[in-house]
């Protein structure tokens, strides 16, 4: 009677023992990956590592090593909370192995020692890294060292709702020719204001919906500064071009004054913004290439190309048409063993291969990181990716990698917001920005 239970537990014990023995012989490595600003279409920012881990494990098996990689993925949909969580986690020595974030974080994080240069672990001459566009690699470098591997590229166009453009007198041919006119500087931000006004006057859109900018802070607003002739950085030093910044602030104040943009536009709920631009409530707006994915996949704008035209950001007074690319980069966080970081670096390398990166590029409507990616079927067969790459990417600037850029940005933005909402006059806003930049950045910024 007692033999059976004893036998049972003995078998159980044997199984348990055997299973731990199996696990113990395999090398278990946990690689954690965090990503910021990742909505429902951006899952491959982290999911790419599942595929990469599978390939790396197989490679190890062929070499005769047993490697078992556990990928822990933590995508954040926003930026504020992500950056707060990551910075504080890193300070508490609990940083993930890999992070996908905006390239502008490289400056401060490198100074703080939160990240290690990827060039210490990755052979930059090896494929697929050698194939990545050199200007993107430039954007992920800081102090002459390559800190990150570009994760995606994008650029930020202006969008026009075609039916309304026709109503205010543009022919199909005119609309077709608009991107070229914008590029040459023949259609400017001034025309944007006028056309937005026309749309409202004709009753096509409600007041405040003629020009419908991004509803929150973003790199987008540096494009307007560039349009008005501003420069962000020169030879490693930040530049505050007072006249250009004033024209930028003035433009948004003018938009509000003309009634084509709402005074309280900033801070409106994001979901509402998306729904409105997808359903033709807005006449002209701006955004990023990835907006295509959201508009088509989530917001139900099935016939994008018949409804929407897209162009560069038009030129303003004293500047030229432009767009901004804000690549995310995979960075290696400090504070891990060399072994874990090496595996993380290998994973990044695999995740950057054209076919895997194309999954992200096409699903989220970002642009590819290498020429060979554009030859992947999935990518080349996508109308948006190919048109946007051709029309926008050659004109793209990027924000500088500078440890002090965040401070500059915060000050630039809050004064733009203040002049937009009328909390300050444009002159006061520019002067306040100048005063604060002088007192916080001192010699690190050129004010002209």
């Amino acid at each position, binding site marked *: 009677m007692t033999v059976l239970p004893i036998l049972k537990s003995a078998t159980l014990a044997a199984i348990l023992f055997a299973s731990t023995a199996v696990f113990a012989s395999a090398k278990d490595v946990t690689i954690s990956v965090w990503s910021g600003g990742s909505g429902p279409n951006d899952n491959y920012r982290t999911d790419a590592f599942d595929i990469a881990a599978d390939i790396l494990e197989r490679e190890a098996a062929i070499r005769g090593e047993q490697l078992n990689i556990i990928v822990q993925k933590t995508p954040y949909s926003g930026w504020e909370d992500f950056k*707060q969580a990551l910075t504080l986690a890193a300070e508490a020595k609990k940083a993930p192995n890999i992070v996908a974030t905006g390239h502008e974080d490289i*400056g401060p994080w490198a100074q*703080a020692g939160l990240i290690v240069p990827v060039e210490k672990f*990755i*052979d930059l001459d090896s494929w697929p890294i050698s194939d990545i566009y050199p200007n993107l690699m430039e954007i992920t470098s800081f102090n002459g060292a390559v800190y990150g591997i570009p994760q995606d590229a994008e650029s930020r166009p202006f969008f026009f709702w075609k039916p309304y453009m026709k109503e205010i007198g543009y022919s199909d041919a005119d609309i077709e020719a608009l991107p070229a006119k914008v590029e040459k500087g023949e259609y400017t931000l001034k025309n944007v204001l006028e056309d937005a006004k026309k749309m409202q006057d004709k009753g096509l859109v409600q007041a405040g919906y003629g020009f419908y900018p991004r509803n929150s802070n973003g790199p987008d607003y540096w494009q307007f500064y560039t349009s008005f002739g501003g420069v962000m950085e020169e030879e490693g030093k930040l530049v505050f071009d007072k006249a250009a910044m004033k024209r930028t602030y003035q433009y948004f104040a003018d938009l509000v004054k003309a009634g084509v943009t709402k005074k*309280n536009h900033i801070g409106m709920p994001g979901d509402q913004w998306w729904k409105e631009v997808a359903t033709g409530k807005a006449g002209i707006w701006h955004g990023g290439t990835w907006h295509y994915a959201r508009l088509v996949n989530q917001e139900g704008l099935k016939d994008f190309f018949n409804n929407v035209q897209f162009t560069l950001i038009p030129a303003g007074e004293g500047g030229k048409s432009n767009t901004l690319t804000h690549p995310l980069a995979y960075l290696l966080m400090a504070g891990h063993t060399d072994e874990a970081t090496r595996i993380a670096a290998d994973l990044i390398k695999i995740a950057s291969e054209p076919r895997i990166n194309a999954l992200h590029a096409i699903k989220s409507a970002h642009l590819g990181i290498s020429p060979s990616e554009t030859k992947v079927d999935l990518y080349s067969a996508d109308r948006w990716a190919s048109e946007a790459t051709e029309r926008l990417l050659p004109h793209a600037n990027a924000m500088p990698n500078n440890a002090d850029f965040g401070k500059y940005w915060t000050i630039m933005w809050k004064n733009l917001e203040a002049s937009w909402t009328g909390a300050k006059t444009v002159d006061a806003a520019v002067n306040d920005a100048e005063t604060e930049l002088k007192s916080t950045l001192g010699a690190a910024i050129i004010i002209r």
Partner: protein
Amino acid sequence: MIAPAAIMIFLFFLMPVVLTAIFAMTNMSTATGISGGAWQVTQGAINRLKADMPDLAGGIAEPRFVIDEEGLAALEALKIKAGFSIELRTSHMGEVFPSRREAERMIKALKDRPSTREVKQISDLFNRSVLNTRFENRDGLMASLNKLGFTLTPAEQETVAAATYTGWVWTTENFKIIGNSPDMAQIFLNTAFYVSVTLLLFNVSYALFLAITTHYMPASTASIFRAIWLLPRITPVVIYVLMWKWLTWDSGFISMFMGQFGYPVKNYLLDSAYNAWFFVILINGFIGASMGMLVFSSAIKAIPQTQFHASEVDGASRWQQVRHVILPQLRWPILFVTCYQTLSLLASFNEILLSTRGGPGRATEVWSLAAYHTALNNYTGNLEYGLGAAMALVLVVVGIVLSLIYLRIFRYDTLISKPLIED
């Protein structure tokens, strides 16, 4: 018996203030890190050194990889394939590479084909520049500079150390920034406005109104009213604020209701600074009023009924009762509520964060919220712990000063002195 209390006070009340004060005297930020820095020759550091020490700045500005005896010895000591060092010695001795990448290209082409890991190991051994190397201590940097042929005097070392240090330093700059920034002044005014209006209108006056009116109601009706006014307090704040948002959003109740009369849809919460303030004060006031109501109601309950009866016999009206019986005996609770609510309004920002996030255009940004945004949560991810702590410290000082003033105004000493009658 005083020891445990003293320890508690120290740990939970004084330590946070002391730590805040310590942080406030630094320039800690994301870029400098919290735990301390390293010494690193970066492009920025070289720019800083150019003016004072042009020779040094020029000499260390470029990366340099040199195949030399020292590196070969280190390579042999590593005991990876012997072929590497033999080939390097015979074919590459004395070669200089201006970048890591170029050095690694040569190493990679060695006949024994080192793996990427070995390439990195080998190239590190021949790195003969200090550029971008993080030295965990100052002497490490100085020793490396020495090896490169730069012998520095102690004063020069000091300059180099200051220019290359990546961590935080002690500074009083934060207070100057606070003092000089026009935005800080605006935020200070916002805070004063928000605290005084909410406090006067709701936390004290409205609470007093509720307490007195419910006092004159039948007990059961009174408890229903009190329970209703407690709802904002007991609803979780996220849900409570969300309900306000439903009320005020573009697609919210007010907007839909006004739409019936032909008014265009708009976001009433963020439409203008006035609207935002109106709702921010209501949201906070409704929560704050309940606390005052409870305190005042119980204080009124504690007034002997005989006093009300006597005053009624004397023909006092309700107003006269309030004026001469109730209010004089509520001085203590009013002091308490004023003082307590001032401090809690000064320090709390969660309702504002959840409703307007300080908008539109920073119109409803109050001091504590601005400190939070500065130190812990902003879009660019540039967390300025030092400046944020300095802002918090200002709040502590303001709180203490205000408390002292209140004690003075309400003549705290007479409130706690022994009644004359018992002498």
